[in-house]
């Protein structure tokens, strides 16, 4: 695919640990917030937020490609799940 072809899209990918997977970082942040007085916090999960700028002829193609990238590289399905959004950039 030609890099300069098509519309420019910005994808935002939200990767989080699958439910049930231990999240020590989330626990540490939750406890930290509570110690600071934010006792209303019940749970915290920490994941990754990936922004990507890419070219694709249309939304459908862009969606397909980003999905593939997530499956192949960005998330490890054994422990992680993801969702993403797309907008013209």
């Amino acid at each position, binding site marked *: 695919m030609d890099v300069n072809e098509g519309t420019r899209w910005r994808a935002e990918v939200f990767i989080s640990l699958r439910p049930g997977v231990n999240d020590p*970082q989330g626990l*540490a942040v939750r406890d*930290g917030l509570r110690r*600071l007085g934010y006792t209303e916090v019940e749970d915290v999960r920490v994941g990754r937020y990936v922004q990507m700028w890419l070219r694709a002829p249309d939304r459908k193609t862009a969606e397909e490609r980003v999905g593939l990238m997530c499956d192949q590289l960005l998330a490890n399905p054994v422990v992680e799940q993801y969702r993403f959004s797309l907008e013209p950039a």
Partner: protein
Amino acid sequence: MRFAVVTFPGSNGDHDALMAIRLGLGHAAELVWYTETDLSRFDCIIIPGGFSYGDYLRAGALARFAPVMSAVAREAEAGKPILGICNGFQILTEARLLPGALLRNASLEFVCDWVWVRVEQTRTPWTSQLAPGTLLRLPIAHGEGRYYVEAEELVALETNGQVVFRYVDADGLPTADANPNGSVANIAGVCNERGNVVGLMPHPERAYDRFVGGDDGLRILASVLSVGLEVAHSPR
């Protein structure tokens, strides 16, 4: 000199700091638990390396709120010498007792090695006994040591004399190859405006014995003793 070495949950360099002071310097030092709220009985404070609170979120982000940090801030305000090593440096920047921030290494990898650093500033109690330009061989061991400040602030740091250590090659030149983590301007350590609070990524406390790699770190730790002498000699 009465040295305090602060232990946070997850500190792992506290013991080495203690050994460096006791075995290397022949001075007494005491481990201080992170819940301590009064450090006034000490003459200087070391915030050691490690992974306080697992370094979760950002290195030093959670430790900064530990009860002992209010006491550290108070002693900093009072002008006592404070040294943050590695994770201690990260904690002090998160606590805004030192400028800038420490980001993930440019290599994205943890790096353990011996490096050369050049002493850029001798107005701090931790470098007062060293000649400007002195080269020191010190170990590093960190994953988040890329020092960052914005361009304008960098200028301010340089003009205020707040850059204390720089990564250099064996000839003393701050080359790109000598920079182990991508820090701006090869900065390995900085101080606050007043100069009493110093933070650095290399580990002087692991370099107190030639048998295990070198003893250049002792020159930093020994510098602070001169402050002790001044305190002792100053009229009450």
